[in-house]
C-alpha cells in the first residue's frame, strides 16, 4: 500500500514537471507594454474628463469625484455593449486596474447571471469582485486611520 502511494506521488511529480514544461510561457514584456498603453490611455481619458470639470470652475480636488463617476459610467456602458472585454483581453491589468475595469468587474458577472434572477443573480453578482475590494479596502482604511490616530494623536 505504502509503496503504491509513493509510486503515485512520484508519478504526480513527474506529471507536474511535464505540465510545467508544456505550459506556454507568459509573454511578460508584451503583456507589460499592453498594460502600460491601455492603462495609460484610460488614465489620460480620466485626466481629460477632470480637465473638463476644472474648466467649469472646480478645483483639481473637487473634480476627482465627478470624474470617477463619469469613468465608472463609461466602464459600465462599454461592458454592456460588450466592448470592454476586448480592452481587458489586450490590456490585461491595464484594462482591469483602472476604475473602468472595476465597473466592468461589477457589470459583467451581473449581466451573465441575469438568468438567476434579479436578487440572487444581478444583485448578488454585482459584488463578486466589488465585495472583496470594498471589504478589504474599508478594513485597510480603518487600520491605517487607527494607526495614524494613535501615532499622531489625531493631528
Amino acid at each position, binding site marked *: 500500500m505504502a509503496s503504491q502511494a509513493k509510486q503515485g506521488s512520484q508519478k504526480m511529480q513527474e506529471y507536474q514537471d511535464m505540465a510545467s514544461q508544456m505550459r506556454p510561457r507568459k509573454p511578460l514584456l508584451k503583456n507589460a507594454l499592453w498594460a502600460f498603453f491601455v492603462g*495609460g490611455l484610460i488614465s489620460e481619458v480620466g485626466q481629460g474628463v477632470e480637465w473638463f470639470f476644472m474648466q467649469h470652475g472646480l478645483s483639481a480636488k473637487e473634480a476627482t*469625484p465627478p470624474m470617477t463617476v463619469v469613468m465608472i459610467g463609461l466602464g459600465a456602458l462599454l461592458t454592456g455593449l460588450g466592448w470592454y472585454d476586448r480592452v481587458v483581453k489586450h490590456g490585461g491589468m491595464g484594462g482591469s486596474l483602472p476604475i473602468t475595469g*472595476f465597473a466592468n468587474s461589477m457589470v459583467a458577472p451581473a449581466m451573465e447571471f441575469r438568468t438567476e434572477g434579479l436578487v440572487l443573480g444581478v444583485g448578488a453578482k454585482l459584488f463578486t469582485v466589488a465585495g472583496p475590494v470594498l471589504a478589504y479596502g474599508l478594513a485597510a482604511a480603518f487600520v491605517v486611520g487607527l494607526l495614524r490616530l494613535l501615532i499622531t494623536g489625531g493631528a
Partner: protein
Amino acid sequence: MIFLWAFIIGGLLCVVAQLTLDLFPLTPAHILVLFVVIGAILGGVGLYGKLVAVAGAGASVPLTGFGYTLVTGVGEAVKTKGVLGLLTGGLTAAAGGIKAAVLFGLAASLVFKPKI
C-alpha cells in the same frame, strides 16, 4: 504637463499590476484587492497624495486611488468627528463612486444582454 504624467503613472501602475499577475499565482480579483490595500497604506503615510498632485487622474483612476480616497476620508472624518470618523470616513468619501457603480451596474445589467 499633468497630462503626460497621468499617462505615465497610470500606465506604470498597470504594468506593476500586470507583472504581479504574470509572476505570482494570483487572479485579477486578488490584485484589485491588493492594490486597494496598497493605496490605503501609501495614502496613510502621505505618499499617494503627492502622486495624485503630480499625476492627477494617472493616480486617481487606477484602483490604488480608491484606497487612497478611503483612507483620506477616514483622516478627514477623524479630524472633525474624532474616533467615530474611523467608521464613517471611508464610505462617506467614496459614497459617490460606490453608489454610481451600483446604479450604473444595475442599469447596464438590466438594459444589455450578454453576448455569448
